[in-house]
């Protein structure tokens, strides 16, 4: 009976959100309208149960979630999952970290690349194809990032076609970004290399309705300055996937090739020519942008990954057209002046050196339950939010401060300001002794119903996929988690602490993502596969539309 209720609730979720994901970024210009479903008491009107202790380290632990399906991804370690409603099928694209593994479909050992899994029937996911990654030195390999657009949506795409954008290689002498035709997901075909000769690639964003692609990459030869990873934005027009058009490079002030990093100074303490943004000179590289498209006209950029972070919000139109202005310098696209980098900048906030910008996910128009009346102008208040995470990079919590996530109020996006912290306590669970990493990683990126503005998912490595109720954004509530048990494909995580080397079989949730049916995908970085989940119990109530919305 409970299973029947859960299915009915899931069906209600889908019916309540008939608009397809293709209406929203990155596929369309609309932003999901978020209805207030709480009383004025907000989180304090909800049950405030603390997360229950997880089970033993080698066992699966679930809280308000249920396992619906699983695929082992051929034992390849996953970086990023992307779920696409593709011509009536739900397809899961997985960007994999570097390595080599047998592909049972071909009988060949293949360099880890991009996996394509049909998850239309979540109970029986079907592995369709693996597009290999770069051959050769595994240290340069992997294809961690993936985006997909429909030719029906791209302005100059071929109708009926589907296109895949991916990083090809991670860090090496000749990394690139590629386009593939995935119209037949069981037999993808290579289209073109957009840009090569990069020394780093990372997480890109592709606006399907305009074709604008914000590629993350860089090369040590391009002259840009970054602490840590050598990567900034390389913006292309891929509205016709067969004819990529370069637009410009972009980064933080202090990263431009013309910056004299030996004499540059902090823009915060000493603004003016030749300064750098944030706490680190030169500023750390960008991780992964999110554009909300031409309607919202904002691009959100996290820099630093796990340290020396800066979060930047830019005006999309100014970003794309700044170097076409009559006043633009001759080399604005590749070697902009400080003024040309500042021109599209709307807001910026520096993090402390212990934290970096890994994800910055905009959640716009969230009704604030406690300010639905009698505040500000007397009208019901909504806020624009940015969910920011900093990536933990140490095993066993050794040598690093804890890495968390935060909710920033960007209603005035010139002055982003944190209003809440999303954290997972080390206890119960003894996560620092469990092995592998413990801390925040990535924020879910689904800008479509049924979950947008209601819940957010954040991967927390060995503490699993964690879900928060963010309807009362100043008082977010943890409501669900899933911690995968190690399996035969889980690569051990080893650490040497005070001279003692130890290895643990521990899973590491790398990304948690939602599809437009309400299923949740927990992708494992340690090679343990991808688990498909649904919400149950109190977590399901959070996302189930009430019979009568409670407005006050």
């Amino acid at each position, binding site marked *: 009976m409970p299973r029947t209720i859960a299915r009915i609730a899931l069906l209600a979720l889908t019916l309540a959100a008939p608009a397809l994901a293709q209406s929203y970024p990155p596929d369309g210009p609309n932003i999901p309208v978020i209805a207030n479903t709480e009383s004025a008491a907000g989180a304090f009107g909800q049950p405030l149960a603390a997360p229950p202790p997880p089970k033993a380290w080698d066992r699966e632990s679930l809280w308000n979630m249920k396992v619906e399906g699983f695929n082992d991804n051929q034992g390849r370690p996953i970086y990023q999952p992307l779920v696409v409603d593709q011509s009536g099928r739900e397809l899961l694209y997985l960007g994999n970290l570097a390595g080599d593994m047998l592909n049972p479909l071909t009988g060949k050992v293949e360099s880890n690349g991009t996996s394509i899994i049909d998850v239309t029937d979540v109970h029986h996911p079907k592995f369709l194809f693996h597009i290999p990654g770069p051959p050769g030195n595994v240290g340069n390999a992997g294809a961690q990032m993936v985006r997909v657009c429909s030719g029906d949506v791209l302005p100059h795409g071929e109708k009926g076609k589907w296109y895949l954008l991916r990083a090809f290689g991670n860090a090496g002498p000749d990394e690139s970004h590629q386009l593939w035709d995935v119209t037949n997901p069981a037999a993808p075909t290579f289209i073109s290399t957009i840009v090569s000769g990069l020394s780093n690639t*990372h997480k890109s964003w592709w606006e399907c309705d305009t074709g604008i692609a914000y590629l993350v990459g860089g090369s040590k030869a391009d002259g840009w300055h970054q602490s840590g990873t050598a990567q900034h934005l390389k913006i292309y027009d891929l509205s016709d996937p067969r004819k990529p058009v370069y637009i410009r490079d972009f980064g933080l002030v202090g990263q431009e090739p013309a910056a004299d990093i030996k004499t540059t100074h902090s823009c915060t303490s000493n603004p003016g020519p030749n300064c750098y943004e944030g706490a680190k000179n030169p500023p750390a590289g960008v991780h992964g942008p999110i554009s909300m498209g031409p309607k919202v006209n904002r691009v959100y950029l996290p820099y630093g990954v796990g340290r020396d972070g800066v979060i930047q919000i830019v005006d999309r139109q100014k970003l794309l057209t700044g170097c076409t202005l009559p006043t633009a310098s001759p080399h604005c696209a590749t070697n902009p002046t400080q003024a040309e980098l500042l021109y599209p900048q709307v807001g910026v906030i520096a993090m402390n050196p212990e934290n970096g910008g890994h994800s910055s996910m905009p959640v716009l128009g969230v009704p604030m339950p406690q300010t639905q009346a009698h505040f500000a102008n007397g009208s019901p208040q909504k806020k624009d939010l940015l969910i920011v995470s900093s990536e933990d990079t140490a095993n066993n919590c050794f040598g690093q401060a804890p890495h968390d996530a935060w909710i920033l109020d960007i209603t005035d996006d010139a002055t982003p300001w944190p209003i809440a912290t999303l954290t997972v306590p080390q206890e119960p669970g003894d996560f620092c002794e469990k092995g592998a990493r413990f801390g925040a990683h990535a924020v879910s990126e689904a800008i479509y119903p049924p979950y947008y503005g209601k819940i957010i998912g954040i991967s927390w490595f060995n503490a699993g996929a964690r879900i928060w109720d963010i309807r009362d954004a100043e008082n977010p509530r943890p409501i669900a988690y899933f911690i995968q048990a190690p399996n035969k494909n889980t690569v051990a995580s080893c650490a*040497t602490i005070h001279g003692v080397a130890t*290895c643990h079989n521990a899973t590491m949730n790398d990304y948690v993502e939602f599809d437009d049916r309400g299923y949740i995908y927990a992708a494992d970085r340690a*090679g343990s596969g991808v688990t498909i989940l649904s919400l149950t119990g109190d977590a399901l109530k959070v996302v189930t539309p009430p019979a009568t919305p409670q407005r006050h």
Partner: protein
Amino acid sequence: MPRKVFAALAGATFVALAPVAAYCAGDAPSAAAAVDVQSLAKVVPGHTSKAGITALFGKPWRVLQFNDCGEAMDDQADETWEYRGRDSSGSYRLHIEFSDDGTVHLIAKIPDNSPGGEGTAAKVAPSAPMPGMSM
């Protein structure tokens, strides 16, 4: 520590860890090499190369590399090779991490049913660059 003494200690460790090593195809999703006691004893962290490992064990069951974000994750040990095997205690993986110079940085024989908690002891090169950051 003199090289010969270190090698002897490493060998003794793996003799103790791997009483009856034998390949069991049923546990492996791909072809894997047999792992035997004598071969394990020949692996010396800090000295044995990738070629040496291949000569001892053949091609690995799986190769992994977690160079995500490049320098943003300084000092994480890089390439990892895994072999599968089975002994009287059950199935296990031989886990070998390499330093950037291509020599073994860390080696461990890890039971698939490792209970967690205490984890599994590993042998690590004496000049490990940064403690606590290997992956």
